[in-house]
């Protein structure tokens, strides 16, 4: 399902989460502001088609419920789309380490289901255009390896005021 279509966009955000209502209610408005296309996919194959189709649309962010990915699909995404930012949209009690992604876990930026936190991160990524380069938020990536989920305070500290 395409929420917004624009040919002159800066990038795209793909959502693979069920239910996606809460994400859809918040994201399109501010993504439009940054001229990002927002797309909701029902399964991993749709994500793939979307990524292949938008290859020329430079940066891409995938917001995904990790349980909707397999280790194989995650490995493929990491290998095929090295510039893709994969945000693992976790429930409060959920932990990335509970899922069997093995060494591919490193491809996912874990985040608990807090829209405010996600919004802030995306805004920063959009503003910086940094989605083209995964390595930009260095501190953030270092934290990912030591812990599953960033706290609200850590995101604020790392990204600054939204």
């Amino acid at each position, binding site marked *: 399902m395409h929420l917004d279509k624009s040919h002159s966009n800066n990038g795209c955000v793909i959502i693979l989460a069920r239910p996606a209502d809460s994400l859809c209610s918040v994201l399109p408005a501010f993504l439009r502001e940054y001229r990002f296309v927002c797309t909701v996919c029902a*399964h*991993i194959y*749709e994500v*793939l088609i979307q990524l292949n189709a938008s290859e020329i649309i430079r940066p891409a962010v995938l917001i995904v419920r990790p349980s909707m990915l397999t280790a194989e699909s995650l490995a493929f995404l990491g290998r095929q789309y090295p510039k893709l930012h994969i945000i693992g949209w976790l429930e409060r009690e959920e932990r990335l380490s509970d899922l069997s992604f093995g060494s591919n876990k490193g491809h996912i930026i874990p985040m608990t289901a807090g829209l405010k936190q996600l919004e802030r991160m995306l805004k920063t990524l959009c503003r910086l255009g940094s989605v083209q380069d995964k390595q930009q938020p260095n501190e953030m990536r270092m934290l990912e390896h030591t812990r599953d989920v960033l706290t609200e305070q850590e995101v604020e500290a790392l990204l600054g005021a939204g």
Partner: protein
Amino acid sequence: MLIGSAQGVFSETPAGLRIYTSIFEGITAAQKDHWDAIYAVLASIPHPRKQAIEALHSVCPQARIVLLVQMAEELQARELLDRFGWPSDWLNYCICPVSSRCLTAQTPASDDYRMTSDDKDRRIRELEKLVMQDDLTGLKNRRYLRHFLPTILQKADLSHSQITVLLFDLDDFKHYNDTYGHAVGDEVLRQTARLIRRCCRSQDVVARLGGDEFAVVFWDASDAEHHSSRKTPEERRKSSQNHPREPVFMAERMRREISAAAFDQLGSKGKGALTISGGLASYPGDGRTAEELLEKADQAMLEAKRCGKNRVLLVGQSA
């Protein structure tokens, strides 16, 4: 293009076939290039398979998609294809091993052999059917059973599940054949085949081995496919002390149905005229190989005959 591993798929090594090991790579390649045919090894497509095939078709709508399946996966393939309204122009399946020449079929047609690729595929499917199907009853034949049984036993070994084989024949069929003629005998066999099929579950394999001899393989598709539902060796040992109840129940139901059926071809005496005698053998309790199971089931069937016919006996059971 081929999606999945070529190992065990082809009867000879294919040439000129692009191989993509995962469905994700396959979809990506299909989206980028123009393909006339996509061959996908069913086992290489993770669930949900329907979405994977839909995705392939949506990015490459002109391509024919052929699922390459092992014999034991045929039921799953048929169920999957049925969800796409099979038969369809763009989706089909082939049972492995297949000839790589059949897949690539890139060589130009010679003057005296102008068959389109579709014609060839159809002919191949017809031939496969002839090879594996009993043309009188439409059931699977002995050849199919010879291939299927070892395959499904291997899977049962991995998943620690049980397989039960029923062998049976019609009591005194020769008498009816001689009295009423072969045409009537054939019709009796066809009606018997319909009755057996009706008594079985969709996954059970029913075969006519020849003459009036039939075999049924009772197996659990979910057990064989999903190792998560596997029984421990201990559980299997315990349950194999008794034969699985479901096949015993189905075999008995089959016997009752046939003995109560009206065979109109046999005239006024047709109702209740025909009976069956059969033997049931289970893996792993009664045998670990196809040959052992068939032999044990055959012995039980002979015992049923000796005990007065019109009965189905388990291995080692006497009336």
